[in-house]
């Protein structure tokens, strides 16, 4: 990514915690309110026209981050600057005209579409709600978008249940692209799909990104998929970004011990390369009672004294490659 690359989204010190409902006995005994620290001080830029992947294990806060960035969730603190405009504190009404700038595609193509609405009507609604075009142009727009995502024109008059999984995911992408967003957030868009269908969707996203200079935040836990699609990769662990770099940097020269372990844990496609021992033992700690120091320290093979005491800062180690680990201080 060159120095002058334009920032489409700037996220600064973003925090999103979910309070855990307290039992009445806890309230009476004045036990402190606990919360899940889903996104805990994340600073991250997304450049125009890039595919940035966000990887990490279940529950580390990937979806919460994405949803907070587009204000589906209200942040506790921090700033979100979208295309030069600070949207952190905008009201629902002020947000509405900006909503079309960022659209989301979800993991499950089955539950994210309204089953009682024909595809054509669904798309029409998007065009009209967001004032994309004159009513007489809507039909043409629908045809264009269907073509863009590789669906046939008769899709207009069919219900989501009449499509295969991959086609349904295309419908979700068509709906998201209908409003010409600048940012597309794809939250595990291929995890539920078979290999042959996954390939269609990955190709499609890559083509669309090139052709329409879309910016994509691609969330996934599949490192092969991420390697294939992403320009840059951000690695998240327990609510924090621990490493960020170009895809090549991350895979060829992982700096954070967790990134290294994540890569080694992905099953190798070469059966001659089998290890006897797992890359790491144990589970990630709970996002509720987070110990001080580096969040990975308990599982980290390199942990030093300082790791259990002080939280490492994200630092640029080589140009464009940042990492939060005491090994590098």
């Amino acid at each position: 990514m060159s120095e002058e690359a334009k920032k489409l989204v700037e996220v600064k010190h973003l925090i999103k915690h979910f309070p855990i409902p307290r039992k009445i006995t806890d309230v009476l005994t004045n036990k402190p309110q606990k919360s899940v620290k889903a996104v805990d001080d994340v600073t991250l830029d997304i450049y125009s026209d890039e595919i940035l992947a966000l990887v990490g294990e279940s529950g580390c806060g990937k979806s919460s981050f994405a949803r907070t960035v587009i204000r589906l969730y209200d942040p506790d603190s921090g700033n979100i600057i979208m295309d030069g405009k600070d949207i952190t504190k905008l009201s629902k009404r002020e947000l509405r005209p900006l909503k079309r700038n960022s659209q989301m595609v979800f993991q499950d193509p089955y539950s994210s579409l309204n089953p009682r609405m024909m595809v054509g009507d669904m798309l029409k609604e998007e065009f009209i709600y967001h004032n994309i075009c004159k009513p007489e142009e809507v039909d043409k727009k629908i045809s264009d978008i269907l073509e863009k995502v590789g669906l046939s024109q008769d899709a207009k008059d069919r219900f989501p249940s009449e499509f295969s999984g991959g086609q349904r995911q295309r419908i979700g992408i068509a709906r998201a692209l209908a409003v010409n967003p600048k940012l597309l957030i794809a939250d595990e868009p291929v995890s539920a799909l078979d290999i042959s269908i996954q390939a269609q969707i990955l190709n499609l996203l890559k083509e669309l990104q090139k052709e329409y200079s879309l910016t994509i935040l691609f969330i996934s836990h599949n490192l092969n998929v991420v390697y294939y699609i992403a320009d840059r990769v951000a690695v998240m662990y327990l609510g924090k970004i621990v490493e960020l770099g170009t895809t090549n940097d991350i895979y060829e020269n992982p700096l954070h011990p967790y990134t290294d372990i994540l890569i080694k844990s992905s099953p190798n496609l070469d059966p001659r390369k089998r290890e006897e021992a797992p890359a790491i033992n144990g589970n990630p700690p709970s996002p509720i009672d987070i110990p001080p120091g580096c969040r990975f320290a308990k599982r980290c093979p390199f942990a030093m004294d300082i790791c259990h005491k002080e939280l490492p800062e994200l630092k640029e180690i080589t140009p464009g490659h940042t990492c939060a680990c005491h090994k590098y201080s």
Partner: protein
Amino acid sequence: MAKEIIKDNDNLLEVNNLNVRFYSNGREMKAVNGVTFNIKKGETFGFVGESGCGKSTTSRAVIRLLAENAKVPEGEILYNGTDILKLSQDKLRKIRGKEIGMIFQEPMTALNPVLTIKKQVYEQFIGTSMTNKEKEERAIEMLRLVGIPSPEKRLKEYIHQFSGGMRQRAMIATTLAANPKLLIADEPTTALDVTIQDQIIKLINKIKKQMGMSVLLITHDLGVISQMCDRVAVMYAGYFVETADTLTLFAKPRHPYTKGLIDALPSTEKKNSSLMPIKGTTPSLAELPKGCPFGPRCPYCEDKCVNELPEMTEIESGHMVRCHFSYKLKNASGLISIEEGEQ
């Protein structure tokens, strides 16, 4: 040659010409079609294929755990020489759980939420002459073997007190407590995180070695196959279309569908090229084509394929393919390359 392998008395399980049909809404669905395979003692055999191709149905048929609307019109399932399809319910129960253990994808549904882990492990010992002390020792040993810390304490807990990875471990521990000779593992890691998946893969590999157990592994993930299996069968629309040892299958795929899966898979070598999706969709199991089931999507399809179902044919020792034109893939590239004579 194929016949000879089948008679080999190293086989723990031999499945011959297994067919399974489902009946619903007046339609007959051909879910498993003429499936033949064997698993040797101490071997891990894998089924791989996309959603709905019949992997779970085939493995459930092996222990006769099929849905009510299923029928097995034809086939033979020899476990240590005994035909499971002909066993009385009583004898079947003795084999199920004791001789053949099964782990399912979602451990919550397989483990009982109102019983402690201890009780569930103990259930595996019913019918043995073990004393309570022996049972407890064995249960603790199993939990320790699967890597659950402080097993004495965890034994008294309930499944909801375990994390996802721990539940899958607990499930494996209860299944293995009975010391089964064959473990059927249906997508044992699909719902898990990569680091936990890695732990479970290594764990099953280790236990298999220690106990000399055989494993039937079901997955749609070629990476998991790569790391666990000695031999693999690729399934498509209820048919086995290719079987080979894992290395051969990955390096020299000879069925157009296997080759299609490999070309569609994002792997490190493909960063700058497009993936090649397999065109079209899977056929309905109620209306399978009369010829090759893959014909409608196959780039090599000719008249012969439309009219005639290809037989499973051994093209090289231990490498079987169901395709009229597999010779056309003789020089096809695989996921990995191997040297001449390696294997």
